[in-house]
């Protein structure tokens, strides 16, 4: 990847909840606009922590995280968002007491002026949400909540989208639907950094992947290369890759 194309760069990232007990150790990564980079690995490997460090939710203890050339490490989350990065957490990612439209309005909190066109675009992209526009977040199904969370994140027109296990708890049909949306988002020029446990689905839409083990990047490469790497498949990704 050329340096000019890189929008997100992590260098020697050490992150976690306690300085004396970091979860991510010296991780290097980069992501280009319009690219889907999937973070894979076993439970507790530090995938979510890494994404949260980019989002400003988890402390960066050492190293550097730069977005479009500017350091964003340890900025408060709202300033990371204001800089063009949107994050969709794995859980508690919608406001259950707010209506669907209010969730989207909160997503557009940083936008000055009329939110109407952005709301219209969100409802056009996710028609199911338009049908539940006045419904509270708690009334939505798991798949609808995930759609709402992504739509909320897109309200600021981000240039980088961070997704933490968007397929968690969804039916296979919903996983396909959500991932198709993610691919289309990336194809529109938005960079996507995605944590995913569903390896098959994740690698299907990803351009490249990183495999984290014990907080360290153990393997990296194109999605195709990771799928075809027997060592990776056997060690971390399950048997499907070998079979396929």
């Amino acid at each position, binding site marked *: 990847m050329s340096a000019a194309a890189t929008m997100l760069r992590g260098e020697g990232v050490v992150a976690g909840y306690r300085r004396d007990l970091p979860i991510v150790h010296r991780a290097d990564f980069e992501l280009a606009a319009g690219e889907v980079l999937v973070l894979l690995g076993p439970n507790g490997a530090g995938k979510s922590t890494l994404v949260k460090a980019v989002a400003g939710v988890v402390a960066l203890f050492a190293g550097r995280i730069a977005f479009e050339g500017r350091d964003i490490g340890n900025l408060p989350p*709202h300033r990371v968002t204001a800089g063009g990065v949107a994050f969709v957490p794995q859980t508690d990612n919608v406001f259950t007491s707010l209506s669907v439209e209010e969730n989207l309005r909160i997503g557009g909190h940083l936008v000055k002026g009329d939110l109407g066109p952005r709301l219209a675009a969100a409802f056009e992209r996710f028609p199911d949400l338009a049908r539940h526009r006045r419904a509270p977040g708690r009334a939505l199904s798991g798949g609808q909540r995930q759609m709402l969370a992504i739509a909320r994140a897109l309200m600021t027109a981000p240039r980088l989208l961070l997704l933490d296990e968007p397929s968690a708890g969804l039916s296979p049909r919903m996983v396909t639907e959500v991932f198709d949306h993610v691919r289309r988002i990336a194809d529109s020029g938005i960079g996507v950094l995605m944590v995913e446990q569903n390896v098959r689905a994740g690698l299907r839409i990803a351009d490249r992947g990183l495999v984290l083990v014990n907080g360290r990047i153990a393997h990296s490469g194109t999605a195709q290369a990771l799928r075809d790497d027997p060592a990776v498949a056997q060690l971390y990704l399950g048997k499907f890759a070998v079979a396929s």
Partner: protein
Amino acid sequence: MIWQALVDGVLSGAIVALGAIGVTFSLAILRFANFSHGDLLAVGAYAALFLLAIAVGSGASGEGLAAPIGPFSFGWALPLALAFAIVVVVLVALLLDRLVYRRLRRRGADPLTLVFASFGLALVLRNLILLFFGPDPFHYSTEIQMAVRMPGRVLVMPDQILVFGITLLVLAALWAFLRFTRHGIAMRSVAENPVLSGIAGVDITATIRLTWAVSAALAALAGVFYGVTVQVRPEMGINLLLPLFTAAILGGVGSVGGAVAGALLISLCENLAALVIPGTYKPMVPFVLLLLVLFFRPAGLFAPAR
């Protein structure tokens, strides 16, 4: 008799509601029980008293700005005093947050520490009022006003009707603010999930400041309205604290509508209880209600569903 008690309950409940909303905001958004909130009401009441004293000056009562407006007991000095009280209480609340609560939040203090800090600040505010104004009660006006006879032989003072009307308008404006404005929706989002709010782009620190300002403005209104319809006393804040908290908890923490309903319910129960028990026992009614709601429905009667 019973109709009079019901009407009195609704009228006084409206004032309690203004204070209870501030308590429910502090519980839901600031995430601690602010025991100095009652004394913010008292600060508002005394700030208005201070400005009234200056505005009226040493001139004869009933002249100039003090001259009663129509059937009311007060003159144009009172709206000025109300505006002054709002500014003073908002500034005091923001100052206390800046000097005390924000420092504690940054140090990762747990909610109990904030609660004890609010206890201390309540004592400071109350004793400052005692220091500057003394222990005696005051009235904003000594003008005589004629009660309005309502159906059911109910008597209501014009001041009470006006205060009730303004309170309804303020509550409607607050509802619209929370429902339709970006900062209002942000306050509701922070009440539910501050982490997700920050991720969505909401500046949590700014939202906390806004919450203090809105709560303080409502406290000032409640304090001045209490002064208009009852009297101004240094201990009015501590005396109102239990009804305020009971209303907020009864209504369900975080629910503005619940706080209003809780305040009306408490005031109605207080006034109805006064028909059958000696008046000196009236203050125990909110306490009994608080125990009952904590025992049978700790989430409150109108808690927002999750």
